């Protein structure tokens, strides 16, 4: 974890309302898949708090994020151009654990969860991962940013591209009992919950990367708590997470 004076290298639209930004990043602070950073979007007091984004890729000296334009902070980010300074703290949080046994990693991404899942897919390319990428509709799929040469299934809720249904529907139709899967999911909470339920029924291990509004993002404020089964009943997404064993989470 470090304070980094980064510079924007590129900032392009990759799907409707989705952007991919690349920026300079010191090699000695190499981020790993699952980890995130925080950006202070502007020097003004609105938006006030730093915003967390997961790394979507790292090449020597260049880091990337894929983000959706949602509100004030991401609108400011989307307007940034080459060479603009970027006030960043990172890398933060834990990582997706690399599968140890021979099981097949199945990586599931939806919405703003695509960035960290793409990063992880590249990282464990040698484990022959299966990538499942979902969106509401075709226009929201950043097809160009998807890692190449990895088996990928696309799913859209409206059937406009790839499989007609949710990513968890894909899992249900693809899975057979001799499959030795290990699941990794990042995306909207209902998707994570459905993924967890699928994993519990089929006795498949599942790792989920969670989102929660953050204050400090370094473990100091207890603001980013989520309900877990152990300890005092809460864990911090910024410190104990963002990646959790899905069985540790109290799903509501």
């Amino acid at each position: 974890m470090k304070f980094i004076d980064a510079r924007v290298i590129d900032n392009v639209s990759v799907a409707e309302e989705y952007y991919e930004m690349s920026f300079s990043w010191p090699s000695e602070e190499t981020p790993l898949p699952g980890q995130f950073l925080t950006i202070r979007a502007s020097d003004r007091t609105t938006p006030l708090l730093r915003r967390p984004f997961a790394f979507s890729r790292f090449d020597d000296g260049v880091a990337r994020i894929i983000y959706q334009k949602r509100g004030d902070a991401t609108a400011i980010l989307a307007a940034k151009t080459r060479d603009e300074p970027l006030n960043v703290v990172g890398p933060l949080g834990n990582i997706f654990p690399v599968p140890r046994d021979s099981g097949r990693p199945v990586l599931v991404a939806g919405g703003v969860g695509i960035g960290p899942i793409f990063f992880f897919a590249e990282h464990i390319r040698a484990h022959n991962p299966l990538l499942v990428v979902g969106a509401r509709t075709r226009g929201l799929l950043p097809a160009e940013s998807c890692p190449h040469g990895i088996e990928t299934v696309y799913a859209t809720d409206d059937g406009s591209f790839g499989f007609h249904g949710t990513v968890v529907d894909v899992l249900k139709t693809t899975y057979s009992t001799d499959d030795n899967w290990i699941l990794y999911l990042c995306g909207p909470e209902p998707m994570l919950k459905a993924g967890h339920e699928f994993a519990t029924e089929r006795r498949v291990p599942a790792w989920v990367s969670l989102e929660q509004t953050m204050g400090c993002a370094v473990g100091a404020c207890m603001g980013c708590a989520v309900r877990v089964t152990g300890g005092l009943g809460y864990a911090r997404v910024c410190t104990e997470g963002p990646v959790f064993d899905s069985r540790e989470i109290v799903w509501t």
Partner: protein
Amino acid sequence: MDLSVKIGSTTFTNPLGVASGTFGYGSEYEKLIDLAEIGTLYTKAVTPRPRPGNSIPRIIETASGLLNSIGLANVGMVGFVEQKLPFLATLSCSVVVNVAGDDPDEYREVVEYLDRHDTVNTIKGYEVNISCPNVKCGGLALGTDPRQVEQLTRLLKKTTDKPIIMKLTPNVTDITVPARAAEAGGADAVSCINTLVGMVIDTSLKKTVLPAGTGGLSGPAVFPVALAMVYRTARAVTIPVIGLGGIMTADHAVQFLLAGASAVQVGTANFVDPNIAVDVLRGIEKYAETERLTTIQDFHTFIE
């Protein structure tokens, strides 16, 4: 120039502190800023037993502000001594422990326990949180009743020789009333303000965003309110007043000092940019130098 501040028996080397609840127990920020530059680190509240904290979500951003409902989530006094105090003991900045409880006896229990286990005298004072809007007992209820404020102050002064700083709530009609009560009870200083009670409703869900309904508002939005409260408090008591609420820049901090504060704390701004606290200190020193102010008392000579 000597901008040190004396509170009770302790001399704090400079007027800058980082506010309770925004800086954890110090180690969280170790990699981001040089902790030696900070004058005083106010820890997250410590209660007798560990507390899980309030339901989620706990944080929501508002216009230039932050509404929180953390609910004093903390490791408890035993956990604090075992897990947090050893690191704090290695720091060169002063450490003040923020204390909270459900009733006066719980506050006493924490102070007594910490005093007993602080074998190398790491703790330079206690800041008594009688102003948390996010818990049912203790906290705010206690802090709005001057009689209870005075009694609790007296009880804690009897319990420890270390400085007692009573942290006041802005959620009262007249902040000078609890301030005077704290002074009457023997407080060595008062700090103000804690967060202001606030609320946000999600109109599509037709529900308050915070499950608890209300939360505590902090950040730049509260600055003018905090400044007026510090100004009034400094004129009502003779003990030092520590000003906080919404500091984002050195100019804000200087305003607190000119209004009568003897020290300041940076809170929510630590989340926004961990460099702000040290920048604020540098800015105060620079202002003092250009304006030829050599002590904190010099700041108090301009505004009646």
